[in-house]
């Protein structure tokens, strides 16, 4: 069965979600992953969009995080201040999805700037909601293609905190969230070890260890019990292609 790397990442991200999770979700692949999970093993997944929409039932794939299809037929709409206070800061969010231009060895994310902040080489969009999502969601997941420039040893700018320079340092700040739990790439899955360092815990059946190593900016450790992921099932791919993204906007 053929599938794209986007499909592969989306399916593997969906599998990380648990039934009943409350997910703070962005557009793009995270949105697809959540909707796939809801149609498969997690029918009671509750999606909260940072635009302030709870319990959305989008009848089409939204391009923007504030698309009107998210509102019509949802269960609740609140203000942005409320979604960040009553939902996220209060601890009502189980899972947050994050992305960024750089993810480093300890799961810190840069979505702000390449180079110096005051004199940027490349100016990126900035935090949006991710600074607080990374801090306060119970678990965070990151979906990103596996490329060396995206996985430096140390990010140029910490837009959202992973484990900083190690798990104990994050703990010391007292932030409520447990930090990044998995980085799903097109080659495999990285997860933090006891020290908060990202290590390879699963490899996709289409990828090799060598590929992963040369596309990672630090000397990547491999978990002793590293798994090989199950390839996307026919049913998963059917839902993605026929129901969720029929015109192939993201996949």
């Amino acid at each position: 069965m053929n599938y794209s790397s986007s499909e592969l990442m989306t399916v593997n991200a969906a599998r990380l979600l648990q039934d009943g999770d409350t997910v703070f979700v962005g557009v793009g692949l995270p949105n697809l992953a959540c909707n796939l999970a809801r149609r498969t093993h997690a029918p009671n997944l509750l999606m909260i969009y940072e635009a302030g929409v709870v319990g959305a039932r989008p009848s089409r794939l939204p391009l923007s995080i504030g698309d009107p299809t998210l509102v019509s037929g949802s269960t609740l709409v609140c203000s942005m201040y409320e979604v960040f206070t009553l939902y996220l800061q209060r601890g009502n969010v189980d899972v947050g999805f994050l992305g960024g231009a750089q993810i480093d060895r300890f799961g810190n994310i840069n979505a702000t700037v390449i180079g110096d902040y005051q004199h940027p080489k490349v100016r990126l969009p900035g935090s949006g909601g991710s600074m607080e999502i990374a801090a306060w969601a119970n678990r965070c997941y990151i979906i990103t293609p596996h490329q060396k420039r995206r996985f430096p040893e140390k990010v140029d700018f910490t837009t959202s905190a992973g484990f900083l320079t190690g798990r104990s340092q994050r703990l010391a700040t007292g932030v409520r969230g447990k930090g990044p739990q998995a980085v799903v790439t097109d080659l495999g899955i990285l997860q933090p070890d006891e020290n908060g360092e990202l290590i390879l815990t699963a490899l996709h059946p289409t990828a090799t260890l060598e590929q992963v190593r040369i596309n990672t900016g630090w000397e990547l450790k491999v978990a002793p019990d590293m798994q090989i992921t199950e390839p996307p099932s026919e049913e998963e791919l059917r839902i993605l292609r026929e129901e969720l993204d029929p015109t192939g906007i993201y996949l």
Partner: protein
Amino acid sequence: MTKLCTLSEAISQFVHDGDLVYAAGFTHLIPFAAGHEIIRQGRKNLILARATPDIIYEQMVAAGCARKIIFSYMGNPGVGSLRILREEVETGRLEWEEYSHFGMISRLQAGASGLPFIPMNQTAATDLESANPNYRRVRDPYTNIEVIVLPPLLPDVAIVHVQRCDAEGNAQIWGIIGEQKEAAFASKHVIVTAEEIVEEEVIRSDPNRTIIPAFIVDAVCHVPYCAHPSYTQGYYDRDNLFYLNWDKISETRQGIQQYLEEWVYGVKDRQEYWQKLGKETHQRLSVKPRWSVPVNYGEY
């Protein structure tokens, strides 16, 4: 007391060179018509604040209206970057001041609430805090843990687009309500643009729906389709095609200049703009109705 006037009159009276402007709306209800009118009137040195600058601020910056931008996410949502804003910031031609979304709207909340600062829990990510001196810390007197604080944002003028409003300015919004209320209460002046001007009795039939009270509003402008290419819930769809096309239009300065000539300077007002978009676009963005189940307030 009616505050009805044309958008041109409202901008002329309440938006001045050098003002701090907050054109509100998170994806939804972005008042593009007001941005275009500001460009047509040639305002200069504005400080433009929005959580997401979106295309509206990119157009205003490209037209030379602004000296500074205050933001928390500077991208074309779902598409990519805002090329001109990015270049202006990268080259240092445009001043900027940056927050997270929560920081940005907390500043508005503080402004709207009359507070001198507003607390937020720590996020462990301290680089933005180091880069922006407005971020400070205060020790919680109960737990002795430090919280992050920000000062109020107090714009000179907020521009808020709404679905329906009476002539005095009592305004109702549904769908994504973003930071509309906070922006209005935080600002010295408030311009409301509305898809529909309704009788006061429509507003009074559902007071819980009202987000902005008339007495803080300075001008009420009837501007149907004000939000295109953004959208108005229930009235027309988001023009995703335009957001995708903008990525090409904005590849060159010339492309943007041509766009501004044709769609901003080249039209008199929003009505002409909307007509110019043509029937096919009108059709593509039209929306079938889906009504709320009404509620009973009771005669007392």
